Structure formats: structure tokens, C-alpha cells
């Protein structure tokens, strides 16, 4: 772990270290990692609760500091123990959220995750001077989600963190299927963040495409470059990159360094924030209106944002396309339109503004063969194949 972090810390451009936890710790099993460590078996991440505080401090010694912040990435719906350990170590930045770390990857009831995240925010907020949490709401299942609901959930999670004592946040957004739509979406996200998060310290973090990745080196490289360009043109303060090996294997330290350099070089070649084209501005306006309607509807349900989220999912006002969690209504789906933009195919009970220009409800839901094409749309596009 130290090897990877020190390689990243040595880079000549601004970087943030990542400490990703193993999948046992993710589900609250702190004993199995010890068994693996005793046997010399490899884990797929860093068991921060199993290791002693001193061991982790030693591992980070000379690396973690004002010039090299370290963010703990954990994937758990019930993060109290992880956050307690962060505070003991002296770390202050993490990520996730009561919705974004519950619905996509766990079977834990949403009500339990909301309670756990409320406690966890207080643990981190009370225990660190500069507690920071990034909402994973802009990524959710990684692909095939209309930008408006990603933005709405990310902003609602940031408001939830704020209500529970964490006042420095970041809002994630995952690169989608159309660069034009993404430029409009990030512009809308920034405007909405200015409006709803005015009492908070916030920034935007862009993720390179999170879905099925191109399998060719050239295709993957080109997709990563496009994401870096998108991030720079839209003034995203931070970004998280994938590597060209994404489709094949877990990347090595060298792969990660290669990708960080690739993204940095690409971004450095862009010298100004891009003025939106008329099509991009139209996307911005639509997404702004959709996300704002969603956020206002949800916030109107209760003064407690945790209760708002629970009620909203219960009523299907928030309904993540293709999410199988029992607390997700499952009445929505999404598709990619002929321009490459992500759209609602079925919007269930999600309160979308009635006057949106594009909003055409399809007669048919997405079929299995269409779904396969949609899942592979970006990979096929960048691998140079036709869908």
C-alpha cells in the first residue's frame, strides 16, 4: 500500500492519495483480514480496522500531510467503525453516502444505512477539524443513469452530510455517454451546488467513465483523455481516473501512474473553460430543471433530510434505473438517444417537469438485446466498432 501511495505522492502535479479498503472490511468482517494477513494471503484492499492505528500511521508516515491529502474509500453502507478508525488515525476525508453506498451494492435496508451514515457523519465531523466527505451519488450503478437523478442524489447526500455535522463536501459526477450532455450536466451541477450548498465548502469531482470499458488500449486511452479534457473544460476541481487495463485486470501501480500522467498532460493542454454551445446549453437547462424539481420535491417531504430520502424512495420519487435493491421502486429505465445522450425510457413516479422539450416517453421498455447494446455503447464507440 505504501509503495503505491509513495509513487503517487512523488508525481510533479497535484495528486491525492487513495486508501481503498478490502471487501471483508466493507461488510464489517474485521477478523477474516487478520486470518489472511497471518497466512500471508493477499487482500483486495487495505484492512484499516484490522490493522492497528500505529501500523497505519507508520504506513502513512512522511506521505500524508497538507501537500498530500489521503482519502479513504470503503464502499460500506454501515461505516461507523471505519470512520471511528479514521479519526483515531488522524485522517479526515472519505466518501460514499447513505443512498449511494446502500442501494447499488448492498442488501441493507435504506433506513438502516441512513441511520448509520448520520452517526458516521457525526463521528467524523466531531472527531476531525477538516472532515470531508465526497458523495458517490453522481456515480451510483456506474452507467445508464440520467444525469439529473445523479446530480439530485449527490446534492441531497451533501445536504445530509451538512445536516449531520460535515461541512466540507465534494459532489461526484461520472462521465456519461455524450461529452456534450456531460458539459451541460456539469454546468447545471455547478449552478445547483451554488444554490443549495451555499453554506458549505464544496467542489466537484469527475470520474472517468465507470461502465463497461473499451478493451483496446487505444480506445481506453482515448476515453480517459476525453474525461480529462471534460474535467478541465468544465472547471472540475478534482478527478478520478481509470486505467487502460480497466476492462482486463486490476491495475498495477505503474498503470495508475501512467493514467494520472495521461490525464494531467491532457488537462494541461487546455487553457480555458469552454463556453457551452447552444446544444450544450440546452442540455444544461433541461438537466438543471429536472434536478431542481427532484431536489425541491424531495426536500419538501420533511425537515430531516434522512427522512426525506427514505420517503422519496418509498414513494418512487427517487427511483434509480436498473437498481434491484428492495427499497428502490424499480419502475424506471434509461436509454441512449440517437445523439448519444442518456434519457429516461420509463420515468415511473419520478417528478419530472412536464414541459421539457425532449421528454418523449417511449412506448416500449428497454429490451434485453437493447440493454446489452446500451451497456456496451461507450466501449464499442471507443473501440471503433459499430453498435
Amino acid at each position, binding site marked *: 500500500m505504501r509503495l503505491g501511495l509513495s509513487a503517487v505522492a512523488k508525481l510533479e502535479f497535484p495528486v491525492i492519495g487513495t486508501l481503498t479498503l478490502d471487501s471483508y472490511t466493507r461488510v464489517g468482517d474485521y477478523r477474516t483480514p487478520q486470518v489472511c494477513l497471518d497466512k500471508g494471503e493477499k487482500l483486495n484492499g487495505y484492512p484499516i480496522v484490522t490493522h492497528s492505528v500505529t501500523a497505519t500511521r507508520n504506513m502513512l508516515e512522511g506521505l500524508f500531510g497538507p501537500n498530500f491529502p489521503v482519502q479513504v474509500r470503503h464502499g460500506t453502507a454501515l461505516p461507523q467503525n471505519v470512520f471511528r478508525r479514521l479519526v483515531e488515525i488522524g485522517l479526515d476525508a472519505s466518501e460514499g453516502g447513505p443512498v449511494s453506498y446502500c442501494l447499488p451494492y*448492498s442488501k441493507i435496508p435504506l433506513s438502516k444505512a441512513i441511520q448509520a451514515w448520520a452517526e458516521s457523519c457525526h463521528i467524523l465531523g466531531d472527531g476531525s477539524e477538516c472532515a470531508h466527505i465526497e458523495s458517490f451519488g453522481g456515480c451510483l450503478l456506474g452507467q445508464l443513469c440520467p444525469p439529473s437523478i445523479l446530480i439530485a442524489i449527490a446534492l441531497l447526500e451533501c445536504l445530509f452530510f451538512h445536516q449531520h455535522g460535515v461541512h466540507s463536501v465534494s459532489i461526484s459526477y461520472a462521465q456519461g455517454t455524450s461529452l456534450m450532455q456531460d458539459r451541460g450536466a456539469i454546468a447545471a451541477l455547478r449552478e445547483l451546488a451554488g444554490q443549495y450548498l451555499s453554506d458549505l465548502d464544496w467542489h466537484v469531482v469527475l470520474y472517468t467513465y465507470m461502465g463497461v470499458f473499451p478493451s483496446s488500449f487505444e480506445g481506453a486511452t482515448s476515453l480517459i483523455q476525453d474525461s480529462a479534457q471534460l474535467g478541465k473544460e468544465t472547471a472540475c476541481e478534482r478527478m478520478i481516473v481509470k486505467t487502460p487495463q480497466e476492462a482486463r485486470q486490476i491495475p498495477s501501480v505503474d498503470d495508475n501512474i501512467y493514467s494520472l500522467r495521461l490525464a494531467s498532460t491532457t488537462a494541461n493542454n487546455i487553457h480555458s473553460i469552454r463556453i457551452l454551445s447552444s446544444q450544450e446549453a440546452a442540455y444544461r437547462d433541461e438537466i438543471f430543471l429536472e434536478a431542481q424539481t427532484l431536489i425541491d420535491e424531495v426536500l419538501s417531504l420533511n425537515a430531516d433530510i434522512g427522512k426525506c430520502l427514505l420517503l422519496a424512495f418509498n414513494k418512487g420519487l427517487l427511483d434509480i434505473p436498473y437498481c434491484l435493491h428492495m427499497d428502490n421502486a424499480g419502475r424506471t429505465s434509461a436509454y441512449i438517444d440517437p445523439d448519444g445522450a442518456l434519457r429516461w425510457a420509463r420515468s415511473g413516479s419520478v417528478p419530472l417537469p412536464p414541459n421539457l422539450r425532449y421528454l418523449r416517453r417511449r412506448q416500449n421498455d428497454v429490451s434485453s438485446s437493447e440493454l446489452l447494446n446500451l451497456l456496451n455503447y461507450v466501449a464499442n464507440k471507443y473501440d471503433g466498432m459499430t453498435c
Partner: protein
Amino acid sequence: MQPAQHFKCLLTTIESDSHTWNLVYLQRFIQEHGGLAKILGCCVSPRETVDAIKSFRPDLVVVSSVNGHGFHQGRELITKAVQSLGTYRPIFVVGGKLTTAEEDNKWISDDLQKAGYDKVFVGQSAIEDFTSFLQEFRQQAMVSC
């Protein structure tokens, strides 16, 4: 509009697998082939699957996994199901990426069939083979109706 439903299918996965796109895809696919597909979500324990088989009484149980642990946990699942179900015996199939290496596919297919699965769908032709299987299964279901 959904086609007429000719058979009941329980679509499940193994306990360690949190992937769901495979399940979302298969649910649509099975429905399009005339099945009523009940889906149990991600990370399903063998006990949950067995309980669902007892209450839903499907004609077909499809176990799909793509995280590379499907061979071990899929084997555990069929062993537990065979032990607990007595004389009631739906058709069991399993498929996806069941180990971390493609070259394992032949021997794990044999092994999983010995353990009790009626069919195993792995490798490049998995979807194609599963399509043929479902078409045949549907025909038989329609005849027996």
C-alpha cells in the same frame, strides 16, 4: 407488452456477488422468452435461494454470477438445494464467469453438472447456448401445460 408467461423462473446469484447488470439483463431476457422471472437481487445466501424456491415453486432456477467465485459458491448452493428440497426438483442451471480463468470452463462444467446442475453456461457461447436452452425449455413448458 410482455409475451404470455409459460413458465416460472427464479433468477438468483451467489452470496459474494454484488453485480446486478447480469441479473437485470437476464430478467428481461427470460421474460421475453415467455418466463415469469422473480429476481432476488445481489448477494443472495443459499438459504434465501432455497426459501424462495420453496415459496415461489419455479420450473426453472437460474444462478448467474460474474465475480469469479461462482464455481465454489454455486456448488455450495446446489448441494444445499438438493439436500433441502426433497422430491420437488425444478431444473437448475448456472452460468456467467464462474472462475477467474477461462481455461477452467470445461472441468468446472463437468463438476457442476455432477453436483446437480442440469446445464452450465460459460465461455464465449454462453448467451447463445442459453438462448437455445430457453427456447427448448419454453416449448416443453407449453406442451406440458
